């Protein structure tokens, strides 16, 4: 896919922190309308990558194209088209939910009437409408997550970046979020998601990329990834279909060279 056609594409994306290379030469392409899962173990470079894709962190080298625009030269235009739920949520704790949504709407250039109408709808949808007088700082973590998502979509972004959106969210709230995200995909938006909850990624995402030690080690549709880690034992057991968790473990395990025998030897004093 050409960079111009892709919703998100990166070329040679690299980020160094002193001598440490957090992200190395990542070439990524996400097609418009895709629900894209970005996975990796802790410290693999997921958050650094998403920070660079959303303008929170400048790359050391390489380029980022979003909707055909170069992020480095068109950052304001790109930011108008994207919504972000970052790690840490980026909420202003001393505002109420409706005040915050109004603030965000105006920051994205929405007029007051549209902002008010959308914030009302979003608060109602997220079951936050009854909390008009409460400051965000007094919200539970799940409520804050829902509000952060509402703020990320209030301007109707074409691409939504979500960093661990389901972490610390109860089943009902998670259901609400999933319903909303699937609705966005149905209407043609692109979603870029990182999560450690692989069941959710498997259920929602059509394409997945896996990063480890700062390098992209797998990228494609779920079927393509399954085919990539397919073994003879899998062929013998025709009824078994590899889950994303199994794919992830195989890909990361192969990369790190860990074996079960090794694991058994370690921590032998435990239990």
């Amino acid at each position, binding site marked *: 896919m050409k960079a111009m056609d892709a919703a998100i594409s990166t070329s040679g994306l690299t980020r160094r922190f002193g001598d440490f290379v957090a992200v190395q030469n990542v070439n990524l392409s996400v097609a418009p309308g895709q629900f894209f899962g970005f996975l990796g173990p802790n410290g693999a470079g997921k958050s650094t990558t998403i920070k660079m894709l959303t303008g929170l962190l400048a790359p050391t080298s390489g380029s980022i194209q979003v909707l055909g625009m170069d992020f480095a030269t068109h950052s*304001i235009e790109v930011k108008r088209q994207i919504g972000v739920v970052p790690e840490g*949520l*980026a909420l*202003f704790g*001393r505002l109420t939910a*409706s*005040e915050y949504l109004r*603030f965000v709407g105006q920051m994205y250039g929405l007029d007051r009437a549209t902002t*008010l109408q959308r914030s009302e709808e979003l608060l109602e949808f997220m079951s936050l409408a009854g909390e008009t007088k409460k400051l965000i700082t007094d919200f*539970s973590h799940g409520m804050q997550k829902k509000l952060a998502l509402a703020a990320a979509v209030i301007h109707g972004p074409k691409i939504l970046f979500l960093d661990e959106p389901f972490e610390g969210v109860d089943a009902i709230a998670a259901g609400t979020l999933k319903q909303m995200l699937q609705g966005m995909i149905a209407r043609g938006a692109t979603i870029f998601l990182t999560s450690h909850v692989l069941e959710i990624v498997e259920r929602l995402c059509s394409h997945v990329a896996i990063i480890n030690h700062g390098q992209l080690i797998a990228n494609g549709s779920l079927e393509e990834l399954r085919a990539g880690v397919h073994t003879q034992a899998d062929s013998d057991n025709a009824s078994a279909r590899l889950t994303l968790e199994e794919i992830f473990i195989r890909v990361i395990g192969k990369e790190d060279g860990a074996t079960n025998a090794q694991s058994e030897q370690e921590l032998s004093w435990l239990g």
Partner: protein
Amino acid sequence: MAGMNEVRMTEIAIGTGQLSRQQFSTITWLRWRIFVNSLRSKGAKGELVAKIFSYPLLALMVLGPSTGAGLASWYFVSQGMEPYLAIPLWIIVLLWQFIGVSTSATGPTFDLSTLTRFPIRYRDYLLMRLSFGLMDPPTLAGLCCLIAMSIGIGIAAPALFAWSAINLFVYAVCLVLFSRMIYAWTERWLAQRRTRELFTGIILVASLGFQFAGQAFGRFAQKMGSGHHTAVNPFLEKTAKGLVSVNWWLPPGLPAASIDHLHAGLTSLAVAALLGLLAYTALFLLVLHLRLHAQYLGENLGEAPATARKKSTASRIKSVASQTSSESSSSFSILSPAVAANLIKEVRYLLRSGPKLYVLIMPVFVVFLFSMRNTGMNYAGFGPHGIEGILFTYGCAYTQLLFVGMIYNSLGSDGAGTRFYFIAPLRFRDVMLAKNLLTFIIFSIEAILIYVATSFLSTPAPLALTAATIAWSLFTLFLNLSIGNVRSIVSPKAMDPAKVRSQNVSGLNSLISLAVVIVCVVLGSIMFYICQYLHASYWLATATFSGLAALTFAMYAIVMNRMDGIAASHAENLTATLSKA
């Protein structure tokens, strides 16, 4: 399997005493590592330099009260006025508490209550909570004062040294326990935001009240001393006598009474007073124990779970309607949407922050207090207009001083929200511009209020002096904003807008802001002296400071044009530091 369990139990079954010692040394090491690791962060070298400069200053600040306490004790004992020892003892207890309220946490902090998750005995936990707070500034200052008192008493009456040292040692233990008790219980009460804000309000009102009472008392004392003997209000006299007699039953009065009784040869009464002090110490320990034991057993101090309030549709529509009308009235249509939205956000933050509102009230209140001292005194020895004419200048200078904290850490209260500034399609310049606009608006309102207040309470400042003061204020404000905006990005510290106590501040920022304020005040004073010396009108100062204000405005404009680049190069540190709130 049994063998394996045996081996494992042997491995961890070190003596309880040994484990306690190990835990103490581990926590000492941990605190040291937290300090050392804090020096590895970005800007830590600057912070270290700031500490090297500020610690001797703090030591000097401790030296003053200590010398005063020592001299006062020596004087009272050598003059046979031992009961008056209660005065420095009362001052020490007040200083001990108020230094604690006003000192900021400039270093890394460690919440000792988190230790309860480790296999730690309650006795050790209690000792750790007590001992690891002994190195804080109020305790050190209080201990220095009490040591100085012992020395003062010892020099005046060597025979009293041992007894007074015992009394003052018990008093020190009593105060340590008292302050720990207060801290532990307020920590419990302030675990929730609403009570925290209420407490902040009480502290601020009390602070204003103390200043008012101090001035009122000063006036009263001056009236009494000036020979115009007016009849003392009998109620006041009765209250004062009552307070003095109650004082002998309280911790600061008991050591004074004990030392006095021993000096008078009344040993049994001296011992009884010391026992009384010991009883207070035991009581404070007991109350502290109740709190810490509950903490040790585990408790949840977080915000109460949200109560689901279901509103009727009608009331919700009503609230939306009222919100729409209030929001339309609070729009700033001449500004760009981004600046206007940020400005509205800043106004909301201001209205919900007790300490910031305090900054708004203080300058006008201080002008009011100064006007109470209408003694005809020519303040600072300059100005042909005396205190009446120069009150406006003082008020404006004081306002600038109070603004420094807001200007040099202007992103601190945004916390994790700072990330939004980098995600949203806006220029960082607009964010800072909105913050600066609010500062400018508040300053303008303050200046008008101070002018009106001084005009009503004494006499209006002369026109030339008013103009010179405004020009100086603009020069200072733009200089502070230029440097403060950069420092806010380069060295941010997360802060809770509802808290007065223990706000995280950058030592280097404090040092720089102090230097800038000193330079501005010195420049202002020199210019005013020059005007006086040359018998020139204050219009000379007005012209000079207007020129300087134009220069600092140009500097401000240059800094603002580079604001996006500065923010981008510090984005990682800025967002990471402020998200840790």
